[in-house]
């Protein structure tokens, strides 16, 4: 080329630019067409919520409640009137915090602020309602602060407004209208157990409860009290009272501790599961999760945990288990529920995500499962482990079976051997003297196990030695929720520890040591000072 040297770089640049420009144009155009939230949504959300936002992702069949259908745009947690759309902040809140009690996690720490905000816009774009409607925001008041008067007022209002018809007199979700509920898409749904606030979809604080009372939980049977408020049936203060009352039903902070302490009984063991002596015994919360290890798996467990209390004396050990259960299975009032939830969750894992178990959905091929009882089991290794090696936590295996206490609402307590998940057989021989008693009230089971500490069978049963951590694990079944066999709620290994009372030596020895040391010290110092006074020279 005869171009001067200075022109060549510019020409090259122009040629390069001309070649690359279409590519740049296409990619920016493509980027401009793609909504910013789409990549994030398809990576993190579509697995449950579906690529088209219809709540029919691959994971949806394993969840109850189902993931939200954004095309339908029925949002449960809002600050707006019932029937109204949510605000952007409402949607962002759920993305950030998740919805406890459901499969929706919080994404605050997993996604950046920009990513989450882009998701809000993308999620809204699935529904035509956001093009035409504006959210009707309610004027929610600030918390007045909890007082005893407000809690008492709330308790009275809870009675008057008949909340108990769904939520039960003690709030455990076992009201007379509870068994027949369904959500707006005809999936089975139950009124919340108000004593387990960590499972409230919108949060457990009084502010969250108050908000839910005013907005209602759209898509669910929980109505809004806004009209009652505007109509003077209830005042804003009274709504706060109800919120504080419900907050007061919570058990207080339940820190999960791995070691369940059994106390030495001073005046004999309690006589029954309702014996007031149990009230003085510390209780330990053991969380339970749906069994999803062994087929058939169970993704909608009813029992979220069990309270464990234990006492012992020289001869016997007594353990009381308490847990919330909405019905005393088998309860005919819940038979339809059992069919519905089984039809939706059980048949084929990975089954039809749209199968809503209304009357039309239960055909003759999915026959109603036979009535099954409520049951609970706790098991131990057959002998005290010498190391951290323990049997397989889920009911042992054939090589190393576990020794199990099993109770059922249709039978009694019995001693079993567990040889693997769901493989339970009675212990050989006459057992070791296990006795059980049970009581059911207001949506709560209490079962007391009592057995001599020393096992008659030295091979297939454990003896309860004091001062040693003894591994223990649990499994619970709610029969009316279709739970039987391996369908139920499972725990990992915990420990039960028979605490030995502190001996007097614990207090005496340090005192003695202090006195001795002080005495010796005085002696030494005193002698040194006397030597000095007597004009002592250095030694």
């Amino acid at each position, binding site marked *: 080329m005869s171009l001067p040297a200075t022109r060549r770089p510019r020409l090259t640049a122009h040629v390069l630019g001309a070649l690359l420009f279409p590519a740049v144009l296409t990619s920016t155009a493509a980027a401009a067409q793609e909504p910013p939230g789409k990549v994030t949504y398809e990576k993190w959300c579509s697995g449950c919520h579906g690529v088209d936002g219809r709540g029919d992702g691959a994971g949806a069949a394993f969840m109850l409640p189902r993931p939200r*259908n954004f095309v339908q745009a029925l949002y449960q947690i809002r600050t707006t009137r*019932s*029937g109204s759309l949510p605000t952007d902040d409402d949607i962002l809140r759920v993305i950030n915090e998740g919805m406890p009690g459901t499969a929706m996690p919080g994404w605050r720490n997993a996604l950046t602020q920009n990513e989450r905000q882009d998701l809000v816009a993308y999620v809204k774009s699935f529904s*035509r309602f956001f093009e035409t409607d504006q959210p009707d925001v309610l004027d929610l008041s600030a918390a007045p602060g909890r007082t005893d008067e407000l809690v008492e007022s709330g308790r009275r209002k809870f009675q008057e407004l008949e909340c108990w*018809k769904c939520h039960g007199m003690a709030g455990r979700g076992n009201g*007379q209208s509870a068994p027949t509920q369904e959500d707006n898409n005809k999936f089975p749904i139950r009124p919340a157990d108000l004593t387990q606030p960590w499972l409230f979809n919108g949060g457990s604080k009084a502010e969250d409860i108050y908000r839910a009372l005013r907005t209602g939980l*759209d898509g669910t049977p929980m109505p809004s009290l806004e009209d009652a408020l*505007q109509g003077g049936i209830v005042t804003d203060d009274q709504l706060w009272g109800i919120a504080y009352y419900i907050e007061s039903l919570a058990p207080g902070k339940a820190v999960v501790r791995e070691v369940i302490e059994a106390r030495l009984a001073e005046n004999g063991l309690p006589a029954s599961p309702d014996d007031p002596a149990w009230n003085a015994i510390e209780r330990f919360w053991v969380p339970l999760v749906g069994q999803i290890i062994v087929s058939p798996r169970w993704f909608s467990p009813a029992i979220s945990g069990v309270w464990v209390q234990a006492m012992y004396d020289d001869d016997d050990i007594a353990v009381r288990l308490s847990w919330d259960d909405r019905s005393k299975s088998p309860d005919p009032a819940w038979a339809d529920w059992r069919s519905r939830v089984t039809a939706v969750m059980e048949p084929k894992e990975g089954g039809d*995500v749209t199968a809503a178990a209304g009357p039309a959905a239960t055909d003759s091929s999915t026959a109603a499962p036979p009535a099954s009882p409520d049951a609970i089991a706790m098991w131990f290794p057959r002998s005290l482990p010498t190391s951290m090696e323990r049997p397989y936590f889920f009911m042992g295996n054939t090589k190393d079976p576990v020794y199990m206490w099993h109770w059922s609402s249709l039978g009694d307590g019995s001693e079993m051997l567990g040889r693997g998940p769901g493989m339970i057989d009675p212990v050989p021989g006459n057992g070791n003297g296990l006795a059980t008693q049970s009581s059911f009230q207001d949506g709560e089971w209490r079962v007391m196990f009592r057995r001599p500490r020393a096992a008659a069978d030295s091979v297939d049963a454990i003896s309860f030695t004091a001062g040693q951590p003894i591994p223990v694990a649990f499994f619970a079944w709610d029969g009316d929720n279709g739970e039987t066999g391996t369908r139920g709620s499972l725990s990992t290994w915990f420990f039960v520890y028979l605490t030995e009372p502190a001996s007097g030596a614990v207090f005496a020895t340090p005192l003695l040591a202090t006195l001795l040391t002080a005495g010796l010290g005085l002696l030494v110092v005193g002698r040194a000072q006397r030597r000095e006074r007597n004009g002592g020279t250095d030694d």
Partner: protein
Amino acid sequence: MSNTRVTRTFAALFVTGALLACSGGDNTQGGGETDTAGGGESAAPMAVANAGTITGMVNFEGMKPANEPIDMSEEPDCQAKHPNGPMTETVVGDDGKLGNVFVRITEGLSGDHPAPSEPVIVDQVGCDYVPHVVGVMVGQGIEFKNSDGLAHNVQAQPQDNRPFNISQPTSMTSAAQRFSAPEVMIPIQCSIHGWMKGYIGAVAHPYFATSAMDGSFTISNVPPGTYTLEAWHEKYGTMTQQVTVDPNGTATVTFGYSASMAENAVVPLGEPFDPHNHSADGTAMRHAGDAPQMR
């Protein structure tokens, strides 16, 4: 004139003209009585020149299946209001007639029809919705009344409109709800009392009625023309008829239901939302730009 004055004059003329044009178009009269008791009368259409009337009858051939008894024992106050024992209202009417059939014009109308200002009232008496089937215009208020003095909630489950769920802990009337899109039918139910079910037809015009127990219905003030009428029943489904209304005339229409229709009945209402429904006319896919359908 100066430029500024020209501009100002034109602006003034323009604004005046716009105001005149806008004010002239509004219709201020809502009209007379609305359908509150399911007695077969239509909503309040405006007076129309040479308007005619459609009178109709819904016949029922064969034995009516017995309605199911309702176990209201958990609510003795409500049970006491049913001296003959509470029953569902699925199939009701005198011998040979069918009541609670919702009839409306689906084709042949044109123009806009403003909603009346009076609300429709749905009452809850004896733990039942009264009326069981009712029509309301798009944009017209519908108020829910609790006459039972115990807790009810009204849960409406439309597909083309926004579902809502209102608690009524004791006797009260709630503020008016409005449906912004036509939809036939919108089911309502109570979460506390599972047997309580009602149906609301949201219609974009006033030419609808619900048949009475004697099977009769009347739609008044109908502009002359030829129309398609659709009847809806909660168990026996839908059927259509053509009707021609002469100026100042009365057109007679008969719908004939029979017990055998239950097998193949298509009963449009707020059915479980189908996540797999990607069809163009599936409710989920209607966009804001669509013209409101005459339904």
